[in-house]
């Protein structure tokens, strides 16, 4: 009987159509990921080449003034995009993954955005995570909404109740076939993604597969729940599509809207203005006070003295640094707001699988906002390292040609890993068990 069921299943138009659409969009989504990774990779290579050339050019322009030279040169700090980002692009297309910073005040430099078409951002990426979160539920709905009702409507259900040993087993067979089909397609696409995007077979890749599987199970459980309410096919279709609409389309935008409106980030502008003003006002204020503040931050530089007559680079870079130092409060206020947004997102997402899966996938792929904030923090450290390295050279007026510039290579950011798979999937699995348990329990009387 199983063979017959399979033939019947594979012959239905819905299956062929669903398979076709998923396959086409799957190819498109993996190519999107591939293109994204390639672009990022090319950008990294170009950055490395550019930094070398850039240093050479600037060196030839400012042969005898290291202060001026240091003003112009920029150093790159790179957040390497991992192959997994091709599966879940997340926020990594908006937020610049390469920082090019000079030793002047950092805050004016590090928030520069990447070049990206806002229309594309609005429509959203069609990456593999989108396919899983958005499209797979639709396929599952299309395959299961009339699992039972169709048999009842065309009158075959009565025959089955007479012929089959157990109607429950029969339905289970039908359902398992669909489950196998969907999982098969998912695994196929994951394998394709793995090969095309060059993803190493690591725990993170497995975590993504497991997360996706749980999500698919969730949708099967929901469909099963609705199917076992034993309503007509039309009602099932409407109810399931409406749940999809609410869970995948409406709730996420509602939640995001709520978060954005709860925490408007005006602090970002305050910080930008404050940083500009704090630096520029130093041109007209007491030079000694500027020096004192700067040396309070970096006591070991105090030996460079406090020259007040005319222009000198110690004073200039001290002013620049104080632009950052004096806007610290505003900056922290901004990051505090971002943290709040992040926390609220996670809190709400716990209850809604689509949100949870999206955030978790971004976490695994290191394409989340947290990740970017970490990168920005690391940029601040990188900037400080470069500054403290160049300060003595500039303050001692070393000859630019005496410095080994070739050792200033772009550096790479190393992200930390703190994703917990258990926390992401346990609530989801709990919902699955509840839904399945409830629907089976309700229908016990029908099944022999």
């Amino acid at each position, binding site marked *: 009987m199983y063979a017959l069921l399979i033939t019947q299943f594979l012959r239905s138009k819905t299956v062929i159509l669903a398979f076709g*659409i998923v396959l086409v*969009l799957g190819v*498109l989504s993996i190519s*999107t990921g591939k*293109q994204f990774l390639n672009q990022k990779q*090319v950008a990294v290579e170009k*950055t490395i080449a550019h930094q070398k050339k850039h240093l050479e050019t600037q060196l030839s*322009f400012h042969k005898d003034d290291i202060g001026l030279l240091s003003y*112009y040169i920029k150093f790159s700090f790179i957040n390497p995009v991992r192959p997994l980002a091709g599966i879940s692009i*997340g*926020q990594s297309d*908006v937020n610049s993954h390469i920082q090019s910073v000079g030793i002047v005040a950092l805050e004016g430099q590090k*928030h*520069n*955005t*990447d*070049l*990206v*078409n*806002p*229309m*594309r*951002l*609005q*429509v*959203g*990426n069609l990456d593999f995570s989108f396919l899983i979160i958005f499209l797979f539920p*639709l396929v599952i709905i299309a395959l299961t909404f009339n699992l039972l009702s169709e048999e009842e409507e065309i009158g075959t259900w009565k025959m089955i109740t007479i012929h089959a040993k157990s109607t429950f087993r029969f339905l289970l067979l039908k359902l398992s076939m669909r489950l196998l089909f969907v999982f098969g397609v998912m695994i196929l696409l994951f394998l394709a993604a793995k090969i095309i995007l060059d993803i190493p077979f690591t725990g993170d890749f497995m975590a993504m597969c497991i997360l996706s599987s749980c999500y698919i199970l969730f949708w099967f459980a929901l469909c099963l729940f609705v199917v076992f309410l034993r309503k007509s096919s*039309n009602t099932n279709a*409407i109810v399931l599509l409406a749940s999809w*609409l609410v869970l995948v389309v*409406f709730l*996420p*935008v*509602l939640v*995001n*809207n709520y*978060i*954005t*409106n709860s925490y*408007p980030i*005006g602090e*970002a*502008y*305050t910080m*930008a*203005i404050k940083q*500009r*003003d704090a630096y*520029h006002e130093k*041109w*007209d204020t007491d030079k000694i006070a500027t020096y004192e503040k700067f040396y309070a931050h970096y006591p070991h530089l105090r030996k460079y003295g406090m020259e007040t007559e005319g*222009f000198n680079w110690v004073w200039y870079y001290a002013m620049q640094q104080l632009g950052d130092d004096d806007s610290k409060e505003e900056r922290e206020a901004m990051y505090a*707001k971002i943290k709040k947004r992040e926390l609220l*997102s996670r809190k709400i997402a716990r209850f809604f699988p689509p949100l949870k899966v*999206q*955030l978790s996938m*971004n976490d695994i792929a290191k394409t*989340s*906002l947290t990740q970017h904030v970490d990168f920005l923090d690391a940029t601040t450290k990188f900037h400080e390292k470069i500054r403290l390295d160049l300060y003595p050279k500039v303050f001692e007026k070393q000859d630019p040609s005496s410095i080994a510039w070739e050792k200033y290579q772009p550096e790479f950011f190393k992200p930390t890993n703190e994703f917990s798979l258990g926390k992401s999937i346990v609530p989801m699995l709990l919902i699955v068990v509840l839904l399945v348990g409830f629907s089976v329990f309700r229908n016990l009387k029908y099944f022999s």
Partner: protein
Amino acid sequence: MKAQIVILIAKQFFKKTFNSKGLLVLWCVFLMALAYVTITGWQAFEEQHHIIGHHQEESRASWDNNPDKHPHRMAHFGSFAFREQHPLRIFDSGIENYTGNAVFLEAHQQNTANFSQVSLSTGLIRFGDLNIAMLLQIILPLIIFFVGYASITSERMNGTLKIIYLQGANMKAILLGKTLGLFLITCLFFIPALVALWSISFLEHDIINSQIATRSTYITIAYTLFFMLLCCITVIISATSENSNKALLSVLGLWLLLFIIIPKTAQVLGNYLYPNPSKIEFRTAIEEEVSKTGDSHNPDDPYFNKLRDSVLSVHKVTDVKELPFNYSGFIMSKGEKQTALIYNREHKLLIDKYRDQNSIAKNLVWLNPYLAVKEISMGLSSTDFDTYVNFLSQTEAYRYKQSQYMNELQMKYISNKAKGSEGKVHVIDSSLWKSFPDFKYEYISISDTLSNKLMAIVVLIIWLLLVVGGMLLFSNRFKIS
């Protein structure tokens, strides 16, 4: 006589649907969502309006409060341009969340527009934005499909279609009547949304240059056409389907295709076919171009050396210090002109690339009326791509003017023997920059928007004419039983 029948059928459909429990629930949920979206959207707009205004003022106040100083110091002090939002963004936020909100405008350097909402948000923002237009563009069409899919099939399956036909109503009247009835139901949802739209227009009309009433009128017309079209399509699908099941599957499939899959795929395909340069490529291209034509920061640049020699010979002097104006101010103004030209050229190439990326979705309006109404709605709400590009070019124009103004001041007032900008020696009076006007953002004019969106508008009208025409012409081909 015929009109009477059409109205009768429409009334009957309306009453029958209106009295069903499901619709009432749906209506209440929709109204609640609408109220929530309008109120929170409005609050967010007011808040943002306040934040932007406050910061624009604060930024200007500290510009004004600068003590007398060297003009080049002011050129680097720079100013901020904050993007003022159009009140209709409460209705349709378009790409607002994805575009930068603040640009720092200083000499020698074109900064990016930063602090977009999306760059300060978690991954959830990528699901989209919630606003009135989203309810009208995505949710209401689905409601229309749900309400209307069985409009003809159920009558046919009950056998009542035959009875209506026998009583003298021809198929034309039945189709028209059902469409009208469905449209009336749609109005139950649409009119509250219009109330929201027009209350925004009335209460926010004092914002200068917003042309808000005209914009709202066009928006109203566009959505009305769109919903009429959808009602016709739903009834036609119902009439051509064998039974309600098939009609339902058809409309659901159609909804997914038109509203979710095609728009997304089109944009992704556009990006795939026309990849835009990365920031590093963009910057390198500009740098290379600048060093080719002449880099004012290079002390041995041939172009600027030649320029110096020609200036010296015109003024019949041998050293730049003897010139009657400040030479470094002069060089900076030439350099600024040079790089601004190159930057603008490269930036235009980038924007054209974006336009190419968008072109696929833009041309698909011929096949997908949703894309058409989306284009029109965003454009008229001043939240579309053109508006953003317009904002960027306004900021760059202001930046250029500000830098050149400071260069002029330097040429005019600063001694040619000045060594630097430090200290209280070579300074000019602060009133000179206080008189320089603040950045004022102008919305794109409505006539420009309309001409940009002409294709989308024409498409909507053609679609409606074709569908209504087709329905009436081929009405006798629809089966009665």
